[in-house]
């Protein structure tokens, strides 16, 4: 987990953040939050997986990404309007650190260094990494017109 979200902090800032945490567990299938609900909490996953989804009237919940061990679940609590852009469901049994957003936001306002460290971590590890991943998926690299590789059944011409 050291290279997960918490790995991006200095020891002091990580301790500071964890002082706001409590450990929680969700059974598989737990709805953690819904799209457009107020973002009042966030989580760092310790075990298990959470699917982020978007609801389509015809197709139901469309999973856009899965988060796992060490990853930050939720960043909408950090930016206005503090509402979830997607929904989240536990894919299997999940254990996580859970944080209330209010006291963490207050700490950010009060301690600029801590605030910068936290904002940086959210931006680089969570949002940045996911944005890069998302862009790569946009390329649809494995689409049928591309073999992916000549050395596994491609075609010179």
């Amino acid at each position: 987990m050291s290279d997960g979200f918490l790995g991006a902090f200095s020891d002091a800032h990580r301790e500071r953040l964890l002082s706001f945490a409590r450990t929680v567990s969700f059974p598989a299938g737990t709805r953690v939050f819904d799209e457009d609900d107020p973002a009042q909490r966030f989580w760092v996953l310790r075990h298990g997986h959470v699917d982020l989804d978007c609801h389509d009237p015809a197709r139901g919940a469309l999973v856009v990404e899965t988060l796992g061990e060490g990853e930050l679940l939720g960043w909408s609590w950090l930016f206005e309007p503090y509402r979830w852009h997607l929904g989240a469901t536990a894919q299997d049994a999940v254990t996580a650190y859970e944080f209330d957003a209010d006291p963490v936001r207050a700490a950010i306002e009060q301690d600029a260094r801590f605030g910068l460290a936290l904002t940086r971590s959210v931006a680089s590890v969570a949002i940045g990494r996911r944005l890069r991943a998302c862009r790569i998926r946009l390329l649809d690299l494995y689409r049928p017109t591309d073999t992916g590789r000549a050395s596994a059944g491609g075609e010179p011409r």
Partner: protein
Amino acid sequence: MTTPAPYRVVTRTVEAPDVATLVLEPAGDPLPPFSPGQFAMLYAFGVGDIPVSVCAVDGHRLTHTIRAVGAVSSALHGSRTGGTVGVRGPFGTGWGLDHAAGRDLLVIAGGIGLAPLRPVVLAALAAPERHGRLNVLVGARVPGDLLYASETDAWRERGARVLVTVDRPDARWNGDVGVVTTLLGRAAFTPSDTTAFVCGPEVMIRATARDLVDRGLDADRVRVSLERTMHCGVGHCGHCQLGPLLLCRDGPVVTWAEARSLLRVREL
């Protein structure tokens, strides 16, 4: 120029709508043994030949997974049991699993890139004492495109950490969704003592290799399999050049340390 040795198709397994795996057996004298990562030029009678990595070696039997894309691959893909396929090889560099002795292994595949990596997984499972933890990270477009789905549970049972993710889940998919690099956070490895084997589309290789180096892997221990047009397989036709490399001879497997600067040059 080498000439194709006739091999008989022993079994044909459908992996996905346009992907089949052929097990081939020599109809005459067998070719020299193939190492994981090496490729064969597979010849369809009267149509032509294409490079296809070996995805299992069992005595003189060769296994190749083929995706139907053009005329030759469609002909090979459509081979029937009992039919004859021409084989030239073995060509190119192997994955070099021996260089990873004692280290954790990261096998990272995108799409059909799992095919060339399958023999690495099989070899690592066959000799678990030779290396540390074995991680197999697989990304596919849709659940139906996942290769060797019937085998991956067995890989898990034999001690591999197999993580699978898809770009586009279907209604029945209850696994991970996302690109293959997002699985890295959940793999079990010590970056300073790990060798990675990466195969997939070049964009995926670049993103994955950079991520691995960011996580502390030495660029020399990130081995990637590259793709360029290959016509002859023996270094004589010039098509597969990538700067100083003739990929049929100096590749397809090279280290990220070698590949990185070359892949930065457009249209090289």
